[in-house]
């Protein structure tokens, strides 16, 4: 059918589909347009996560709680690891709350694209929504575990210090770190499932290089600052400082951690954008 001259409509937005070359800006505006989807994905993950389990949402608490019990027995009692003068259970649980959030975010977000492969292949939506929503869904578990933490603190007669006003900041730092690492891993996992097998190992190694079972005060400056290169070290020490008032105010270490977390997050977003065009073809 030979077309007569067609005019370009002025009132409709134009979308151009073309090959994306090299590195490009992450599609943040589009993600914003789909913010409701982000919310729905997170909501779905929360609703579905503990279906068909006996314990239900208790799992959000059991995980960090029993790790704390084990740590208290072996590191606290047997090995007599110092705990900045605090009861060891509180000391370790304060660190385990953000840590569990981080570890779960990694495990689930890195797999989010693969699990939803069918959707990625059949429907267009900003791919960023999947890993981000998965990480956000973990916030509910985090909140539950946090309540338990407050309970444990009260049990030991500890009251949060004024520093607690900084807690949202450290929570945000944990979130940004989790997102950054998750974006990298999720995008890589699409191409090579090796990532999936690396995660348990990676989280375990990361657990031990983060001051969870031991305090970072074991290190002296400038090594403590260098330790901040692990952003989770900054998060964990920040949590302890904000809630328990450990006297090692984490100034410079936190700055290093924030810097690293932001770098991870931004580079993760760009890497994801770069890989995203191949997702539907590779999955």
């Amino acid at each position, binding site marked *: *059918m030979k*077309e*007569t*001259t*067609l*005019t*370009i*409509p002025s009132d*409709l*937005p*134009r*979308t*151009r*589909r*073309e*090959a*994306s070359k090299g*590195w490009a800006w992450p599609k943040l505006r589009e993600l914003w347009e*789909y913010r*409701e*989807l982000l919310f*729905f994905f997170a909501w*779905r993950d929360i*609703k*579905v996560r503990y*279906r*068909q389990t006996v314990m239900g949402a208790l799992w959000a608490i059991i995980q960090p709680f029993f790790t704390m019990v084990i740590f208290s027995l072996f590191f606290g009692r047997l090995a007599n690891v110092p705990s900045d003068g605090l009861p060891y259970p509180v000391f370790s649980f304060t660190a385990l709350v953000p840590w569990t959030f981080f570890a779960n975010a990694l495990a689930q977000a890195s797999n989010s694209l693969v699990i*939803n492969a*069918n*959707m*990625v*292949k*059949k*429907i*267009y*939506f900003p791919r960023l929504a999947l890993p981000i929503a998965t990480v956000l869904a973990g916030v509910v578990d985090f909140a539950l575990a946090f309540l338990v933490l407050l309970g444990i603190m009260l049990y030991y007669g500890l009251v949060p210090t004024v520093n607690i006003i900084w807690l949202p900041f450290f929570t945000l730092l944990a979130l940004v770190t989790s997102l950054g690492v998750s974006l990298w891993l999720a995008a*890589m996992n699409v*191409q*090579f499932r090796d990532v999936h097998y690396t995660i348990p190992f990676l989280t375990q190694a990361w657990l031990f290089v983060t001051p969870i079972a031991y305090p970072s005060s074991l290190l002296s400056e400038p090594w403590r600052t260098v330790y901040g290169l692990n952003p989770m070290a900054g998060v964990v020490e920040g949590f302890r400082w904000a809630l328990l008032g450990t006297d090692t105010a984490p100034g410079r270490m936190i700055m290093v951690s924030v810097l690293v977390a932001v770098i991870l997050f931004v580079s993760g977003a760009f*890497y994801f954008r*770069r*890989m995203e*065009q*191949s997702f*539907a*073809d*590779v999955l």
Partner: protein
Amino acid sequence: MSDIAINVDSLGKKFQIGGRQKSYYRLTDQLVDTIVAPFRRASNLIRGHAGAAADLHETIWALKNISFQVKSGQVVGIIGRNGAGKSTLLKILTGISDPTEGYADIYGRVGSLLEVGTGFHPELTGRENVYLNGAILGMKKTEIERKLDEIVAFAEVDKFLDTPVKHYSSGMYVRLAFSVAAHLEPEILLVDEVLAVGDIAFQRKCLGKMDDVAQQGRTVVFVSHNMGLLQQLCERGIFLQQGTVHTDGTITEAVDAYLQTLERAISQDLSRRTDRKGVGHARLVDTEVTNGSNGYSSVLKTGQSARFVFCVDAFVPGIACNFFIHDAVGQPVTSFYSRLQGPEDTYDPMNGLKFVCELDELLLLPGRYRIDVAIVGDNLLQDFIEAAAVFEVAEGQVRGRPSPPDGKSSVSMSHRWTIPTR
């Protein structure tokens, strides 16, 4: 003068497939490569070279140099054999995958129905899934709220709205999924073979809905194998062959061109054909259509027996054969499915890897027919070939009665009249 809705300009899509077959001079080279390869892949991966990371060096062009324009409000059918690039084209238009070269400009909001029910979660209730699926398809929450009643009514699942969809029958599931998608209101709708869902009554309802969409002046791009349906819904047809535009014209022109090439494909050896779908653990390698009675002649006659034989090359658990007969204009006439068993079905261990389907009375009117064959098994589509065979039906009698010579219909039925006499 009318507005343009889609402008596709020299679009191409290259896929990287298959691993590299390297030849090594020495064993040590191979050893070294085995050790080095993971590092090379990892470094490619981190630098964001997806293709290179997978060590894929062989390429095929799924689409090459495609250009066309669709004006606003036009309903266009895209046809072509399996692997012709129809789905790839739709995926590029929706934005699911990027083209390798050229571009496609789209004016307005795009909605796509590439597969109903993707994104449904079995653990969530019907209502929850409507919201989730609506959001995935790009609807706003307020929009979904506004249309919820309509969506539910259309799908006829009112009573089960708060039941998790895992308890739904497959019919209900599909109806709800389609209903959500059908209530999208984009300027441009891209549809891929979704109407083959649900029972006949619901299919008709879906068709009505699609017709409405077309009537409302929205642009629709429609991919289907159902020529009858396409001719009913579309004004224009684009026939893709091996990734290029073969015919771009009225839907009748495109369908004719398609049917002609289908006929040509039949002369090709079945096992060599590449225009197939499915996982391929069991593949159709031979088809035979014969007259069942007199010494297996290949002339079929209306009202006489017929025998269809389908040979596969492997056995998979739960293997079954499903074939569809289409008439000369591509309209589906009837289908046969070995999984829907009847009391007369038998198993013959001496038969090898053959499905034999025998009809005592072929109720097709004289004309030319083609068969599309699907082999399923292992809960997967194993193989699907369009036009695996073509056969002619010659004039005959159904229980002693000549068949009506109207040239339009394709089915005759045995029947009995009572005629008034004086």
